[in-house]
């Protein structure tokens, strides 16, 4: 057979495909309307699985892989079309619109805020940067900070999410799946560690240094320069300072923040002893209510993906297609599930941009579960 003849046959088939594809999309639109009337999600994993199994059964062995790809794409296009018809993001779009309109133009200067730790903790430094005048209630752990805002004891909570040298605060990410909250602002705070001891204690007297494990890591160079001194990890830096202040011992010191000097009546033996000068921690400010303040240019979402090939790749390709930059992508294993993950996305886009809402709508349609965590700006 001549090549031209083969091409002609292909053309004929393609014409049929286009015709059938258009028909398929028309029916898909009717299904979208049905789903909207009955408040059903766009994605129906059971139907998709059955569909793929059915078409694969009919496919000759040699083409099975290709059929699989073709129908995955067909269904994805169908979902994308349905998503566009039913309004991108639906409830998320509406909630965002409402929040943008109803939130005060100014971020509050006074509030009751939940922080983990005790007075002098780094969360307090972040909190003082966010609020002019905060009534801080301190809690034993991060879990309680989330509970305190959920249960209305505090209006806001401040928790760390990542450190420039020690990385992600996994504990906080893991708690996000268990609580209802929104991110309303974030702040980057320079973390400085200082060696503090009781007045009268000299550098050469110090035999043991207490601090949080991360702080000890961040000051490893300074610590290894000291001879015969042991670093002892404890719950947090402020507690280390408090313990040193209250101990009868005169041979211990703490690595802690500057406010701890005044707070616990300590003396600063050495300033800024961290390894690098640009040691930053990012904190998020969380609230029970969705509040979106002017200038919000970051959006956070968390989601789980279908446990199948290429699902993350496909999701990322949507961001690429819509021209939305990804600031951070974090994955954490889900408890009691075998290698299934919760993904956290920080999207870099003004909340008012229409393609952000389209992106959220398409992401939602492609995910098993999807939670919008808020849109906010970061205080540098």
């Amino acid at each position, binding site marked *: 057979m001549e090549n031209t003849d083969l091409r002609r046959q292909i053309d004929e088939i393609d014409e049929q495909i286009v015709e059938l594809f258009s028909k398929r999309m028309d029916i898909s639109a009717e299904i979208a309307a049905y789903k909207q009337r009955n408040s059903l999600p766009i994605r129906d994993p059971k139907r998709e699985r059955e569909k793929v199994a059915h078409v694969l059964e009919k496919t000759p062995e040699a083409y099975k892989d290709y059929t699989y790809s073709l129908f995955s794409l067909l269904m994805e296009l169908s979902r994308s079309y349905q998503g566009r018809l039913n309004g991108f993001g639906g409830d998320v779009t509406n909630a965002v619109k409402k929040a943008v309109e109803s939130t005060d133009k100014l971020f509050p200067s006074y509030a*009751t805020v939940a922080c983990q*730790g*005790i007075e002098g903790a780094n969360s307090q430094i972040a909190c003082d940067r966010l609020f002019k005048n905060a*009534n*801080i*209630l*301190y*809690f*034993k*752990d991060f*879990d*309680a900070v989330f*509970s*305190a805002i959920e*249960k*209305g*004891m*505090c209006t806001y909570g401040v928790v760390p999410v990542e450190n420039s040298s020690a990385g992600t605060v996994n504990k906080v990410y893991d708690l996000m799946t268990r609580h209802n909250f929104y991110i309303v602002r974030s702040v980057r705070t320079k973390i400085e560690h200082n060696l503090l001891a009781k007045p009268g204690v000299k550098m050469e007297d110090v035999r043991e240094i207490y601090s949080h494990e991360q702080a000890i890591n961040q000051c490893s160079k300074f610590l290894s320069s000291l001879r015969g001194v042991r670093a002892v990890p404890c719950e947090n830096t402020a507690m280390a300072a408090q313990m040193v202040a209250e101990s009868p011992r005169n041979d211990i010191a703490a690595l802690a923040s500057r406010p701890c000097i005044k707070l616990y009546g300590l003396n600063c033996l050495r300033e800024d002893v961290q390894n690098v000068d640009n040691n930053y921690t990012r904190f998020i400010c969380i609230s029970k209510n969705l509040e979106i303040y002017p200038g919000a240019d970051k959006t956070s979402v968390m989601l789980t993906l279908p446990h199948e090939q290429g699902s993350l790749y496909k999701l990322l390709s949507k961001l690429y297609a819509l021209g939305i930059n990804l600031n951070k992508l974090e994955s954490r294993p889900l408890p009691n599930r075998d290698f299934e993950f919760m993904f956290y996305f920080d999207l870099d886009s003004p909340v008012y941009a229409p393609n952000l809402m389209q992106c959220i709508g398409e992401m939602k349609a492609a995910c098993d579960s999807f939670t919008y965590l808020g849109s906010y700006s970061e205080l540098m």
Partner: protein
Amino acid sequence: MIVELKPNTAKQRQDRLVEWLEELGLGVHVFEGESKTVLGLIGDTSKVDMELISSLEIVERVKKVNETFKCCNRRFHPDDTVIDVRGVKIGGGNFCVMAGPCSVESEEQIMTIARAVKKAGTHMLRGGAFKPRTSPYDFQGLKAEGIRLLIEARKETGLPIVTEIMSIADLPLFEDVDVLQVGARNMQNFDLLKVLGQTDKPILLKRGLANTLKELLMSAEYIMASGNERVILCERGIRTYSDYMRNTLDLSAVPMLHELSHLPVVVDPSHATGIARMVPPMTLAAVAAGCDGLEIEVHNDPKNALSDSAQQLTPEEFEKLSKRILVVRDAVT
């Protein structure tokens, strides 16, 4: 449930916690003692997240309170309550003797007795104007006139006056009375207790002769829950198998009530025994048991008294007893 705060907790933190608990629909009883602050939670505490409260840095500990009485519970208020009646203090180491006739009978009678008990060093004057008598044919008291005469006696002696209220309807007559007594028969007259809870008068609440300590405390709770925290508990004898004596004076109630509650506890040995010669030994035993005060009946002419003639002491007997009370108190405190 009670929440004990750490010493030196910042006021605005404490205030926010209290405000939040109130937002949950709970009553919060704030006790600010010298060494610690305790928040007593009243209401349905089952929905309160105990774990969240315990994880607050300002909280020392959170405890469930199983007892149904809250306001009068010592756990809500670790220090003794001191009640001030016209400068006379009772509770928290302040000892107070209330003495006077069973019933106010005449101006001459009440004045004579008032002068005599004052001379003996008593702190308050008691006297019945409304009398809850077993028989409707017995003397029922001088009523409004009785209260007027007590006020007269107070004018002359300066002794604050204690008298019993039996009915809500009589309350306006008690406007100028210092301490309102709820008698044993009315201990569970809950409507009366609620109304007294809305007054600002100290209430002397007597234990019913067939009531448990828990029931007594629940009655005090009625008064306190209605807003009046000035309650004095009184043990006045309970009905048992003991013959020869009118009632059995349950002195073990004194230390037990002190353990359970922060309210002052007084003892009435006159009604408990019903026999004048039994009053002095039981008075001294009550003092030894650690009571915060006594209510003793004294009559200038017991034999001819219009009520409870057998149990009232003469002024001379009372004066003698008063001296011995001081000796025993010295010995036990």
